[in-house]
């Protein structure tokens, strides 16, 4: 049995085939990786929100705001995944900048251009998310300071 396997490996390396040792990464591979990263980011935020709920940290105002931030980041990721999918992955929407400063949105699916236009305003989700995160962190800092002062006083 060992002899058969050894012979097979030997002939495999001696086979005269074209060399394709390194794979190319052209096409839409980059956007797929980016989409996957968005998905992972959304999952990470989902996990953070779940942890805050399971460990009953929501009772603290700071953690509650961090959880809101996590929810908004999830929505933002969904939004940008949709935008990337529509205009880069499957190219269902084409955007042309007109000389008038306007945008010409072309899509074969009715209504998709309108949805795409709204979805492009993704900062309306990610900015509130980071603001909630900042507010939550400020509150956590204040709580920690208060606890430390309380510990010193006692």
């Amino acid at each position: 049995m060992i002899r058969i396997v050894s012979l097979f490996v030997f002939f495999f390396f001696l086979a005269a085939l074209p060399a394709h040792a390194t794979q190319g990464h052209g096409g839409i591979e980059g956007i797929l990786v980016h989409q996957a990263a968005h998905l992972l980011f959304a999952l990470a935020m989902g996990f953070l929100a779940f942890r805050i709920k399971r460990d009953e940290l929501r009772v603290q105002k700071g953690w509650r705001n961090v959880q809101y931030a996590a929810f908004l980041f999830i929505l933002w990721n969904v939004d940008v995944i949709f935008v990337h999918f529509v205009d880069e992955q499957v190219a269902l929407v084409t955007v042309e900048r007109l000389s008038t400063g306007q945008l010409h949105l072309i899509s074969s699916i009715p209504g998709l251009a309108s949805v795409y236009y709204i979805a492009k305003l993704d900062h309306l989700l990610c900015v509130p998310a980071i603001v909630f995160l900042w507010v939550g962190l400020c509150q956590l800092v204040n709580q920690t300071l208060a606890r430390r002062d309380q510990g010193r006083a006692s």
Partner: protein
Amino acid sequence: MIVSSFPIISVDLVGSLLMIVFSLLCFERMVRLTSLDKENILWTYLLFVCAALSIFAVSRSAGHIVKQLLFLIEVPGVWEHIRPFSGSVNTLTFILVASVTVFFERVWVINRAILKDRRALRQAHEELSWLNRNLEARVDERTQALAVSEKKYRRMFELSEDMILVTSGEGQILALNPAGVAQLEDGSRLGPGASLGALFVHGDAFDSILETLSREGRIRNSEVTLRGVGGRPFRALVSGVTLTDVDSREGTLLFMVRDVDETLTLREKMATTEKLAAVGELSAGVAHEVNNPLGIILGYTQLLKRSAEDESTLKEDLTVIEKHVIGCKKVVESLLNFARSGPSEKSPCHLHRIIEEVLAFTRHQAEMDGIQVVTELADTLPEIYADAEKIKQVLINLIINAVHAIDGKGEIHVTTGLEEPGTVFITVADTGSGMDADIRSRVFDPFFTTKPTGTGTGLGLSVSYGIIKNHGGEIDVISTPGKGTAFTIHLPTAG
């Protein structure tokens, strides 16, 4: 669809700027939070997330701003060169956030366990510190409480009117309170190791108590007879419980003993009084109904006897009838005396004089039988308001009974004294055969006698009882089989 680019461009530019600003602010807050509490792993996690978000925000937002500016100055081609780098950095920051989150998932769980243990340790440490600081005070406090408790129970043990005994499982006395020392025979010598069973008049009663205790663990109000001071038996209620020592596992017995002799004697006396009162009432009725016909029979018998010829059979028969009718009348008279319905002539009189008159003719008879009469009379005694003849009758009855009770040689002690202000007592005690409890309870019953048939009517003590009651006094008896009997009369003084 042609739309204005202004909303998108403005939101993109402003939003990008805000993202840079707030992400950096978040990072600054996390740096601050981490420096405040370096040991909290959660802050480390959030610091990584915020760092990644800051990189992402700067990369993406800067890219967007540059993009908009390049489009504005109409060199979009440059953006195509920058775009892959910006997108790659964004991708890396997302993966970084996800990686950190996955990595910290387990760290988070472990951190919570560590924090929980730390809280428990801190609490234990605080408790130990507190105990260490307060141990001495707590020992003092407990010792003081123990001393107070010990004193309280010691006082209960020592001041209790009832006997409290602690014995071993076999009945060897381990501790006895002062009440027990005072009430039991040779109480002062009942040290540890003495047997409680030896103090029981009936040893089987003690065995029965031990058996009940071993079977049921406790016994309540068992009536027993114990040996009291000077060997005097007294009745008592014994309650006991089995105690097991926690350390040695040895069983000890705790007894509470209450002397109820006086209570029971009083109760028996009351029962006797009630019984004799009922018998007296009945006797009075019968005597009254029988007395009149007897008078008529006696009168007619004497009339017939007077008219009968001398030495005739009829006269002899009538004499026999007369004799028995007179006997019946005496019995009836005795019954009336017992029932206190007979006439009496009371006047102030000296008790000692009455006793001397009684002894004057009873002493001789007693001494003939080898019995010595000893008088122990009080030096001075107040006069009593009584029918002297009736009191003489009572004393004669008691002395004659005492003589009959002594088989062979013996002594009769006649004692007098002032019992309490307004009451004198006379005791007639013999060293005769004594009576058991059953006879003692019936000794004042009419027609009850222990003498052979024909030698006693059984009315002597009944009549004496009636006479003493008629004088507002009391008569009681103490008797021990084999040792003797003592009758004591209590009479009110004159005035």
